[in-house]
């Protein structure tokens, strides 16, 4: 029983981590945060840099839930997340949802959509500003 969070260093990623922590605490399980990149550009704003990782670690450390952070690199973001999900036998996947323009989706695809369709376990899709489970 493990909650897996697909994370990027922005407010959507933070919302996903907040929900993941709350759920893991409620169910008494542990939490794995995955931050993936394709690593094929010089700069990827959705790959956590050392200072952003430190911030995430502080956030995780403030909660009693045992947690771990994974940074992975590979051809496909969704495949990497699902790979970690299987590896740690995750029971729930939490993703943050953002608005995408039709053109943006056509060009770059949508990681969240791939995860919703391909995940072997239930997916919880959250948005910033939604009330956390008690």
């Amino acid at each position, binding site marked *: 029983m493990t909650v897996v969070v697909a994370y990027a260093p922005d407010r959507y990623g933070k919302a996903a981590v907040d929900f993941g922590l709350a759920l893991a605490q409620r169910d008494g399980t542990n939490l794995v945060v995955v931050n993936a990149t394709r*690593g*094929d*550009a010089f*700069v*990827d704003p959705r*790959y956590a840099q050392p200072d952003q990782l430190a911030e995430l670690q502080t956030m995780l450390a403030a909660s009693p839930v045992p947690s771990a952070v994974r940074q992975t*690199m590979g051809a496909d973001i969704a495949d990497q997340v699902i790979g970690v999900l299987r590896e740690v036998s995750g029971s729930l996947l939490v993703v943050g949802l953002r608005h995408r323009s039709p053109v943006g989706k056509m060009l770059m695809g949508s990681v969240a959509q791939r995860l919703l369709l391909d995940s072997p376990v239930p997916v919880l899709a959250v948005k910033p500003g939604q009330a956390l489970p008690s």
Partner: protein
Amino acid sequence: MDSLDLLLGGLGDALTPTNLMWAAVGVLLGTFVGVLPGIGPAMAVALLLPVTFGLEPTQAFIMFAGIYYGGMYGGSTTSILLNTPGESSSVMTAIEGNKMAKRGRAAQALATAAIGSFIAGTIGTLLVVFFAPALADVAVKIGAPSYFAIMLLAIVLVTAVLGSSKLRGFIALFMGLTIGLVGLDLSTGQPRLNFGQSLLADRIDIVIVAVGIFALGEALWVAAHLRTSPLQVIPSGRPWLDKDDWRRSWKPWLRGTALGFPFGAIPAGGAETPTFLSYIVERKLAGKDSEFGQGAIEGVAGPEAANNASAAGTFVPLLALGLPVTATASIMLAALQGYGIQPGPQLMSSQPDLVWTLLASLLIGNTLLLVLNLPLAPLWARLLRTPRPYLYAGILFFASLGAYTVNQRPFDLFLLLVFGLVGFAMRRFGLPVLPLILGVILGPLMETKMREALSISDGDVSALVSEPLAVVVYVIIVVALLVTVFSRFFRRPVAADVDGTSGS
């Protein structure tokens, strides 16, 4: 002043709307490729060479000048914001520039780099205006033996003095010289090294060698190392300087210019040595309790000025002697040859319009660089998010298109692939690219001069040392070689590792 009149005439010619447009295109393209690490100005000029065959020579050169200066400047943006120097010449900028950016002074670092580049480029170009004609006047009187000696000096210095490994440098040089031999002998018309293949008899076009080594080689190398941890680009606003920054910057700008120009102008050019020296000088002058090590603006201003001044300096041997000393200059020389213009001391008298318009367009390109790039800096940083597959697919497309356009024969695409693999292997084994390109370009020129000297003397080898200038140059070569050999015993070389893969 005679030169000034000619320069003003050149400015008049260069300031047409069409030419201004090509200058702007060149500056934007140059900055575009300069910003992306791994794609240097040499590669950009090589890729665009075939495209410009449809243009007038003047317009093509205006564009190349823009690309050259733009590429020089673009490298500083990546060095400062990403700590990844795009060119070997911006290694020094990265040291203090990135520390400034980390302290939240990215805008000032970008501004001092841009304004320093502008000032150094302008002063440098004006110096070219005064030195190149004078040197060309002397150079027309130089005989074939001395000319041969000077070219030998250029390739030996570039190979032995720059670069971290002499052996690798010479391997690359001799590969280049060999490629330069392929095809019909220039004076007797006998086929050489063509393996009985009539398609090779035409000699191998330098465009194909350059595009293969720079573009295809780099694309294959990147494909082999596709995934690397992304870096963080430090956000920066619009570059600006306050009064204190101006006060601290202007002296390093001028000192950097003074250091950079002569190093660009001598045949051992390249911006690596002067940028390094400028950094050392500024650190010494700043004293112990300076900001050096935590992001000193002097450490950005000096090397960036030296970098651009040396880029300007390389035009002195290029225009006055037909002697390229950097990869970009070599390819510009190839472009000249593509237009049927014989580079050399006669260039200034036979093609005055071209030369003066080019020099004037360097000044214009420099100004455009400042005007366009100060406001665009944050936009350039976003370019770094482009995934490599998209970027290199485009490069491969232009490389193949360009190689095919040169002679419109499919065999050249095969040659392109061969040189692409050579370029990949050179990157894999750490061979510098510059000696190879110089070898391909200067090899045939040297051969012509040597055969000329020998046929005048009826095959007497002593003719090669019959001119005093030639003897002096040979002495310099020997001294330079001895110094590089012996300096090894006294101290470890401290200069930054200059591999020249991206060229400058």
